[in-house]
């Protein structure tokens, strides 16, 4: 067991972990942060996507040991002042949620994109979520949800 300090959703955790444990396992099993989902554990489905230092990553492919000193954000940490993040609202409004299992990863991929590029093209949105699989929605509502937030923030800038 190794002692590490993990910063998740702006909170520091002092925890003991096995060196081989992935960030996904540590979040889910040790910190009880369960929005990142276990879908394949091979980086193929994107259900475990979280944001690490501003980039969307598959938490099943990242060793927790490597995360010391990094900022991890999960779906649990994107509300501000108790208000839903605009992406969360947009996913509800656009029918981008069905079974909900891909939803946390999708929202985090969308957020990583918008944080870096507040007004992406539709093609950039598709690239951003191309590592996230969804079997229910047919993707179109997800793309339009992210697009609506992009348009929103572009509108605010004017």
């Amino acid at each position: 067991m190794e002692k590490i300090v993990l910063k998740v959703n702006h909170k520091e955790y002092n925890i003991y972990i096995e060196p081989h444990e992935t960030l996904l396992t540590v979040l889910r099993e040790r910190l009880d942060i369960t929005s990142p989902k276990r879908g394949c554990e091979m980086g193929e489905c994107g259900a475990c996507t979280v944001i690490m230092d501003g980039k969307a990553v598959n938490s099943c492919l990242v060793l927790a040991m490597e995360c010391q000193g990094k900022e991890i954000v999960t779906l649990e940490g994107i509300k501000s002042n108790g208000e839903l993040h605009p992406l969360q609202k947009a996913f509800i409004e656009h029918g981008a949620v069905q079974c909900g299992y891909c939803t946390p990863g999708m929202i985090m991929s969308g957020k990583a994109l918008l944080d870096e590029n507040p007004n992406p093209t539709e093609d950039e949105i598709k690239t951003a979520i191309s590592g996230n699989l969804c079997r229910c929605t047919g993707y179109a509502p997800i793309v339009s949800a992210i697009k609506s937030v992009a348009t929103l923030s572009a509108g605010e800038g004017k």
Partner: protein
Amino acid sequence: MEKKPIVGTSVDRTDALEKVTGAAKYVDDLKFGPGLLYASLKRSPHPHAKILNIDITSAQKLPGVRAIVTGKEYNSYIGLYLLDRTLYAVDKVRFVGEPVAGVAADTEEIAREAVDLIKVEYEPLPGIFDPEDALKPDAPILHENLGKYEYAPFIFPEPGTNISNHFKVRKGDTEKAFTECTTIIEDEYFVPHIQHTPIEPHVCVAQKDSAGIFTLWTSSQSPFAQRNLLAKSMKIPYNKLRVIVPYLGGGFGCKAGVSIEGAILPLAEACSPNPVKLALTREEEFNCTFVRQGLKAKIKIGVDDKGKILAMENTYYWDAGAYTEYGVNITRASGYSSTGPYNVPNVKADSYCCYTNHPVGGPMRGFGMPEIHWGIEQVIDTICKKIGMDPFEFRLLNVLKAGDITVTGGVMHPVGLYDTLKKVKEDIRWDSAKPTAPSPKKVGRGVASMWKAPAMPPNAGSSAILKFNEDATVNLMVSGMEIGQGTHTVMAQMCAEVLGIPYEKVRVHTPDTNYSPYEWQTVASRLTWSMGNAVVKASENARQQILTLVADNWDCSPDELDIADEVVYHRNDSSKTIHLKDVVIYGVYGKDGLLKGGPIMGIGNFIPSDVTALDKETGQGPKSVVHFTTGTQAVEVEVDEETGVVKVKKVASCYDVGKAINPFNVICQSIGGVYMGLSTALFEQLMLRKGEPVNNDLSDYITAGVRDMPDEIIASYVEVPQADGPFGARGVGEHTMVPTAPAIANAVYDAVGVRIHSLPITPEKVLAGIKELKSLKTKPEELKEKAIV
């Protein structure tokens, strides 16, 4: 007071907030404390083999191993329609991945290590990997005990063969009718195995506590079917087996009936009182859970000189896999739906459920309908091309209308299929010139229609319980699973509409068989209709109790009262109102001055009342199913003649939903259905080499991605009410993927003249067809119209 409609409006999903915040819990998210043990299964590496010996001695010695179970101790049979499966393999294995032994240990790693230490000796046996081979006289028999298995009365196994169900239709006189046809097309179509690939893999935790009570927390579409089949198989009293299912991360059929739970319950028994968890890997998900059955379809359709269908003769060979406890009913459904949604006076159909040494075939979205329509709708397209008839005109002429006689001799109920054809034709702009694409791309358009009935036993029931709270909010208990289709939302809408309260005040709960009422299963797109009827009855039951109480207090008749916005009011006396919260818990004084009522609960149940048996030899009977949902899709594709790549540009889809309880949700289901239909049309196939899946991960098993979706989907619905449906509704979840694949295939033919006979429509097949067409150009005319791929 004015009642605002809730049914028929596009309210937000009741589960969406939980799902966008991460609050929604799935089985893998539940915590069980430090006593939790982990399971792993020893699986067969052979498609067909005798088990000679299982040696668990060295595995048992591994520190941290708590229990090992095999088919020796757990040899009872289990199954939904045919009890042909054991919890663990007994004497024989019949597919690669079949559980032979189970281990429970302190950690997942120890469990897996112990599995590796279990030594199993096998004697490999010849296998069957093609459904037609299963019927050959010299085929090895996979289930020697088929004659001894228990089965449902509407299933017809043929002991001594590999046929676990043979459904026959003999209607009219096909032999004579074919002689009267001016055009007959006969062709063969093939559908490979695919895997449902829900993003949430199967996961289950089981516990037998110190008092002997079993609890299962499982990712299941069917908590009550689970309890029924498992309790029966393991001889547990039903009230001592509790099944809890939180939200489900997709299922599409692979989490219906019993799947991994049969293997975990014995381990829980052996490790009592510790809970034991089994979480499948993605690889196991591909190898060892239900797959969609494969199909070889021989289709023969004859028409007269006006294009009217006179006869059909269809033979379906289902590649049903190693166990067909569930799949036998897919064979049946494809039999009683064997003509597609057409009025066909003369029908001969044989649907065979064939045992093979492939993974276990089970229910998947569409339940046989995407598979049979793949062939039927293409043969119809071929006929249209041959006789020079527009495919929409052909379908408008031939589709079943109210009062027509169906394939099984029943009378077709009011149906809007005709209207869906009209709508889709307009939306795809069928009559306008096709857009041009830059060379080497060719544009094509195609259309396909469909029908599908809920396939279930005649007595599949639903029930609902609602209870009021002090603030007049409602908790609604049902056991249909919220699997992504939005059933909780439409149940809340129906409940709120009847009770006269805002829909946000109704909270719908995921089931726990200890507290939630019975529901057969979340399958067959039956919940809106069946569970909806139970919810409406429960809501009316509560409403009547409330109105009766208030009427007594006001000394009037309950008929003079109504409820809107949580207030009971007198229709003709605006001074008389009372808020529900003053009624629903603490009672109301009657006109005699005595306190009456008490906490209000509503109960309701529903069972289809008039589904009849079908004759074993002819498949005929007055009412084969409760109803059919019908629809049409048309697509526009671009086919690259140099690469063979097919890009779906545009889809128009329309279904007759009876009544759209939540219109936006119907559209969302339609878009999701187009996605899944497109994915199966162009990409999905579980590649099997001697029964062993080779593309068992998400890199090699390709599903349609975000970039594969059409540029435009025009989804719509029509509403021809279902007489016995809640508010006139019938189901539409599965149907939305049924016609997509044949519509795309018909569009590919329209674009480049290549008829694709086997799914998926890969660039290789399209290119091979284009090449063959070119080589046929020198050959006689009648050969040109058919390039077989």
